[in-house]
């Protein structure tokens, strides 16, 4: 588990984490522009058609999730994915802990991913959740939450591996936020290599009588009008 001294981990550490935390608090999402370079994006997207390295392939239309497909990696994860997962987790755990305190949720996350995964694995959530999604023309992903069991880390990451306008059109990342009696929708503009950190399910949002309210977040992808779009999804809790 190489975290802390690989180039990808250094690049994560070098980001303005105060600004990222502020964006997460205000909007429930934050973009880390150009976290991966074009070569890394191509390499990861190039993994998609391979037979090995995955624990399962999901065709979304079969489950009513949308149109398109995705594959969950098996352990051990590709080194870059593993590095990203560890380095991002370490930065996000303090934010997740603060959110839980604000929401009155009596769960705190350990500082290192391996300790959190050990907690997941003890509860029977042993299957890895990082995945690559592939959308072709006409494909879309319905609004959903990536919950896989009792243990939930409240933030996750998606990295766009394709370039909008060149590799595909349409296919915008859409989030909805539901509070009592109100629902907002937000498109998050992403370019190739951008990482988006976003709320998995609930978050403390500004507003309400006490200045803070609990909202429910969902995310999805609008229909691709043309081309092909790959995304790497980095979810921190494992699945039962």
């Amino acid at each position: 588990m190489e975290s802390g001294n690989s180039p990808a981990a250094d690049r994560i550490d070098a980001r303005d984490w105060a600004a990222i935390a502020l964006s997460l608090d205000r909007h429930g999402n934050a973009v880390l522009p150009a976290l991966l370079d074009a070569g890394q994006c191509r390499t990861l997207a190039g993994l998609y058609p391979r037979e090995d390295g995955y624990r399962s392939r999901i065709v979304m239309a079969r489950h009513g999730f949308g149109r398109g497909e995705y594959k969950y990696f098996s352990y051990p994860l590709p080194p870059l994915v593993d590095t990203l997962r560890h380095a991002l987790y370490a930065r996000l755990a303090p934010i997740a802990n603060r959110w839980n305190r604000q929401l009155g949720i009596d769960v705190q996350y350990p500082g290192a991913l391996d300790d959190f995964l050990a907690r997941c694995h003890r509860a029977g959530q042993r299957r890895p959740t990082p995945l690559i999604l592939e959308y072709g023309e006409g494909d879309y992903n319905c609004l959903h939450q990536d919950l896989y069991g009792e243990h939930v880390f409240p933030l996750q990451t998606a990295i766009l591996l394709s370039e909008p306008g060149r590799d595909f059109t349409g296919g915008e990342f859409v989030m909805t936020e539901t509070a009592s009696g109100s629902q907002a929708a937000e498109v998050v503009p992403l370019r190739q290599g951008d990482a988006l950190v976003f709320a998995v399910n609930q978050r403390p949002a500004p507003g309400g009588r006490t200045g803070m309210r609990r909202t429910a977040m969902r995310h999805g992808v609008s229909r691709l009008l043309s081309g092909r779009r790959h995304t790497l999804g980095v979810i921190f809790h494992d699945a039962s």
Partner: protein
Amino acid sequence: MQAELALDPPSGLNGRISMDLNLHALGRLDWAGIAAQLDAEGYALLPEWQVPEQARALAGYAAGLRRSPLVDGKSGLGDLHYFPEELPAPLAAWRAALYRHLVPIANRWSERLDSAYRYPDDLADFLLRGRQAGQTHAPSHLSLLREDGYIALHQRNAGAHVFPLQCVALLSEPGLDHTGGEFVMTEQRPRMQSRPMVVPLRLGDAALIATAHRPVRGAGGDYRVNLKHAVSRVRSGVRSGLELFFHDAP
């Protein structure tokens, strides 16, 4: 038809606003294609509805209309500017002409949804039906959203006389006048997750969208889906838009 808006011009604009609302062009649109797109997606684009200058001029018209602020955390953040009961003459004429093209689609959707409701051929007759049932508030409006502004997911389908289609338009230029502010729709299906849509509007483009409900063909026949629409957070600049309805609200 090159026409002029008949109300007083808003401050800051000299003279009257001219709009190219060519009613003949409306007749030349590919209505079979538009109907097919509405059936498939719940929206259909009318690209280049207005040339850029006229779209901007229409946006400027908001200053002369009744302002109604959105409520942050509820309906959104920004201002709606409501047209009076009588739309400006050229817009009224265009809406009446557009309505005629949409009636067959609306009636077919009614049939497919097993509704006995049929829409009259003439907009004036339909609006009269609404008025007689107490639907007297005109919901058509311009919207003005500044940085961080948004419009929450909503649908305006109160009352017994609701036209299943409405028109929206973008009156500012993405990337130039504003960033963000995408037009988003969601489609709720029974016992399934909602489908998000982003309507790719540019300055002067309009789109026909489902007001609230539409039929979708399933394995067991047609079923009804529930649609809402919203404007995503404006990241910078000012976004101007139009929502045009064929029915009034109670």
